[in-house]
């Protein structure tokens, strides 16, 4: 499997506060990379650096390189709109936008002016998100009428509508019931055939269920990463071992 995202010596500062220090890792195509670590370890910052969503924050500074398919994404002439379509993000809290389910799905196509061709994708993405059966008869009802788990699956489908190469998920199942969580996990496993998944999760067990490889972040540093089984059963670092066995977190 080839590398799709290459991170080298990447550091991030908010003002003078270092959020990430010297991160180096590779993301392989068609894998599910899990990112685990306690709160404040920089997981979300790292994820948001991949689609440059951190640019929205004031006082934000980076150093190092991130390459997506060989192109350095922190260059000034990168088209952020294209980048963010190729690396689509699903947020921790489901955020349905005001409007119908259909209108929510059409967000990406509307912004990128590809509305005409997108209609056919609706069924495909809803099925990939395991939501089609539940909403196929009420696509024009308000998205707010859905339950929390359904809304999050809708957000997943909405992101898939842009046909991204990489899915960035930031603790997508926090606060969801176990059935919705299971559906989303199943969707991710299916989806990795077509794209790459980077999954930030505060639920260590979820990483062990779903991720092919896992990276452990602590206080802004990448402590260790490798095959999931190795991380959980035979970690190299002591801190990794303590975290995955629940000694702290």
């Amino acid at each position, binding site marked *: 499997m080839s590398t799709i995202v290459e991170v080298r010596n990447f550091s991030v500062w908010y003002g003078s506060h270092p959020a990430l220090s010297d991160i180096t890792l590779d993301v392989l195509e068609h894998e599910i990379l899990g990112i685990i670590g306690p709160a404040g370890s920089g997981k979300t910052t790292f994820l948001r650096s991949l689609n440059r969503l951190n640019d929205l924050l004031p006082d934000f500074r980076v150093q190092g390189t991130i390459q*997506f*398919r*060989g192109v350095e*994404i922190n*260059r000034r*002439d990168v*088209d952020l709109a294209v*980048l963010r379509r*190729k690396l689509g993000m699903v947020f921790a809290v489901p955020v349905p936008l005001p409007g119908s389910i259909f209108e929510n799905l059409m967000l990406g196509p509307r912004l990128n002016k590809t509305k005409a061709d997108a209609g056919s994708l609706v069924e495909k993405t809803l099925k990939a998100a395991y939501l089609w059966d539940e909403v196929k008869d009420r696509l024009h009802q308000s998205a707010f009428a859905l339950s929390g788990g359904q809304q999050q699956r809708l957000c997943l489908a909405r992101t898939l509508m842009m046909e991204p190469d990489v899915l960035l998920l930031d603790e997508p199942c926090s606060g969801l019931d176990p059935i919705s969580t299971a559906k989303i996990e199943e969707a991710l496993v299916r989806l990795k055939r077509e794209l790459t998944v980077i999954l930030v999760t505060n639920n260590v067990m979820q990483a062990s269920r779903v991720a092919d490889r896992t990276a452990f972040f602590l206080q802004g540093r990448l402590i260790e990463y490798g095959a999931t089984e190795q991380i959980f059963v035979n970690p190299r670092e002591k801190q990794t071992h303590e975290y995955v066995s629940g000694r702290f977190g």
Partner: protein
Amino acid sequence: MDQRQDELLLLKGRPRLIETLLETAVRSSAVIVIAALVLIFVFVAKEAIPLLTSADVHNEVTVWTMVRPQESGDFSWQPVSEKPKYSLPPLIVGTLKVSIVALLIAIPLAILAAIYTSEFAPQQFRELLKPVVELLAGMPSVVIGFFALMVVATWVQDAFGLIFRLNAITAGIGLSLAVIPIVYTVAEDALSAVPQAFRDGSTALGANPWQTAWRVVLPAAMPGVFAACVLGFGRAIGETMIVLMASGNAAMMSFDPAESFRSFSATIAAELGEVVYGSPHYHVLFFLGAFLFVVTFLLNLAAHWYVARLRARLEGKLK
């Protein structure tokens, strides 16, 4: 997807034209806001400057002649007469007279009402009073002036047995109606901004609600309450229609509130319609306007500063 295709897609070379245009458009709007304020000052001052610089105008009037007593020893404002007389003291006294009357009525009422609303009132009453004050704020000043002239003047004259029907008391009562909403709103915001922790702490020490309000909340909010008074004062001296209609428009120099008077703004409004463009009188009126602008600008800055102090104090104390 080979590397070159990705590169072409990702790199756009320069930002899209439409985005830059739109950003320029909204930024220009913000600049226009600043420009508006600057232009107001510039174009009012522009017509006032000849009063300071032009020899022609100086034949008739200078700033100095407007301030010092005239030949007969008194101060008289009679720009439309054979020998035009311009004198500022009657206008200053008139403006202050009516403002003081208005503030004496408005400030106690508004601040007490603000205290009631933020400290004692049940929720429903709060929901009732705020819209009433907003409606009062929305009442056009010409309507208040009308009411003052038609109704209040008669009451006041009958109640106090005054000679002049239109005077500083009548106009002051009308003016207070315009000042109350401003003082109330800013004071109530200041009082509400005092953190609940202050009140809880005081109650925990055994104080009842009024002691808490009087000794803890009000002192804490004092900069904001003071700002409210400053803003009220600024509103009072700048208000035009109410004074124009209810003051009697007699530019007499008198400290007696029961006599007719003239204020700065009313003078401008009353005389600008018939003044000859470019005449000394014209320039003097613009001078009055520039003066008003500067004074209210300074008062606004002062109020702004006090509110900033309030915020700093409340946050500082919490930390």
